[in-house]
């Protein structure tokens, strides 16, 4: 049973004289133990999907299931969520905030759990401070502590590193990977492609409310690019037969190849070795998720 199944979900927002189709027949599943990235430009519908999963928003049609069930009080006990702009009551200190959520989630031995989280997220100096006096990074650590307080099996993270300094963002990413290693399933939305590439096992790309691609990161990149751009500098000029065989371009000792996937790259390198050439320099340009994002967004436009 998948932690999240989104089936044929559609949602339209409307008012007097306006109508926006926010989601159009969106379907995907998040598998147990994976980090699943939901990508897309601003206004694509990422947060709308998360809100529907969290039952803060009702879909017009279709359904979102959590561990095979519709959202209900019991299923929420093993879920938590965090967003980049998570806020808590400004007047309460961090101990009080975490105590409240420990109560709500009926955490056994709450003091011990809070102490564990304080140590894990290095919050020792924050505990007596009111939420209003924390910096953005410190607020995010509190949001993380709240999100982990119930040992969630599923964590929904909406832009968790938005606006953070690079070192704090890196710390958050390490934390996300640590959670995945512990078996927590994570649904992540992010604008930062390198972050998604670093963290996610699979992604879905959403554009203007439609899922245009879903699969593992490498697979979806190759689906759209299918190529590696390779530049080789050899120790001598390659023979015409070798150039023709491997469809190389370029002049002299510097040649280029556009290859379909990793197997083709291996075949080229093996050929170079068999012909007795030595490689002086090699540059392989793999498509990044950012290339993918720009291409898919461009294609859809």
């Amino acid at each position, binding site marked *: 049973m998948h932690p999240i199944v989104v089936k044929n979900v559609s949602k339209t*927002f409307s008012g007097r004289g306006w109508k926006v189709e926010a989601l159009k027949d969106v379907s995907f599943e998040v598998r147990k133990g994976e980090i699943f990235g939901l990508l897309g430009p601003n206004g694509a519908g990422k947060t709308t999907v998360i809100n529907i999963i969290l039952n803060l928003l009702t879909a017009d049609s279709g359904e979102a299931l959590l561990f095979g069930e519709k959202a209900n009080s019991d299923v929420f006990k093993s879920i938590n969520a965090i967003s980049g702009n998570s806020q808590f009551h400004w007047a309460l200190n961090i101990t009080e905030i975490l105590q409240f959520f420990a109560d709500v989630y009926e955490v056994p031995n709450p003091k011990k759990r809070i102490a564990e989280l304080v140590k894990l997220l290095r919050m020792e100096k924050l505990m007596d401070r009111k939420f209003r006096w924390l910096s953005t990074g410190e607020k995010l650590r509190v949001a993380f502590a709240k999100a982990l307080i119930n040992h969630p099996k599923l964590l929904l993270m909406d832009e968790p590193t938005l606006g953070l300094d690079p070192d704090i963002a890196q710390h958050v990413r390490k934390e996300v990977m640590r959670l995945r290693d512990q078996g927590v399933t994570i649904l992540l939305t992010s604008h930062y492609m390198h972050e998604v590439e670093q963290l996610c096992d699979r992604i879905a790309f959403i554009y203007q409310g439609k899922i245009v691609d879903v699969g593992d990161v490498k697979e979806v990149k190759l689906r759209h690019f299918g190529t590696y751009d390779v530049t080789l500098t050899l120790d001598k000029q390659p023979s015409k037969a070798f150039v023709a065989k491997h469809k190389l371009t370029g002049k002299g000792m510097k040649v280029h190849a556009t290859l379909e996937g990793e197997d083709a790259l291996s075949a080229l390198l093996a050929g170079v070795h068999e012909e007795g050439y030595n490689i002086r320099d090699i540059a392989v340009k793999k498509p990044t998720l950012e290339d993918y994002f720009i291409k898919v967004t461009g294609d859809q436009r």
Partner: protein
Amino acid sequence: MKLHHITSIMKNDLRVLKKVKLRMLEITYFPLTTLVMWGLFALQSKQYAFQAGLIVLVVNLFWSFTQLAQQEANMFMMEDLWTLNIRHYFIAGITEFEYIIAKLTMSTLVATMVAVVLVTVAQWFGAPLFQNLPHVIGLAGIALLGSLALALFIAGSVLMLGREYAFLCWSSLSLFIFLSAPFYSPSILPAAVRWITEIMPFTYVFEGARAIATSTAIPQGMLLHAALIAGAYFVLAWPYYWWAFNRARKSGMLARIAS
């Protein structure tokens, strides 16, 4: 319905009350000073129309209690909307009913505690409240029912319309005051609006308050009638709140006000 969800919210609201001391000022200072002001007026009026002074005093006491019970329920909710805390509640599996029950219970506790002080002060100024304690408690219960019903209507409306409509928390009760005939008998009003007065949740509470102030007997039938009207508001308020909450969830307003 999970009791620990309700008690957790209430405990948290108590923590907030303890931390935001100016909220305590709002809860105690304003009703108390208003009552003292009218108590002094009642003392002054001993020279010419003491009963008129007592009417103003006792009606104000009930009015303050009504206002406090309604406003505090809505203010405890607004705190969550202003601080964007409300999102965490609903994704923790707290239902809309557990949430609002916690807020109504908190406001009932706060209003009741303040009411005890107000009754004592009014008694000191000469209002015969202790002598009529069963009626005072009965009328307070009816007033509370009406206030909580109104709080439910307002909570649903604010969730449905958005944070920008927070002013409803302070202004809605004023809509009722004129037609609830606080200091005068409904018979003074033109016949065209008198029927509205008769279906207002607080009309009979004020009529009872005037009777207590003037040591006039309160007909038992009137109390029952008042309880039925306030009860009807209370019963109708729940489906409205549920409908408004779900409308907010459908329109996207719930997600919007929670983030």
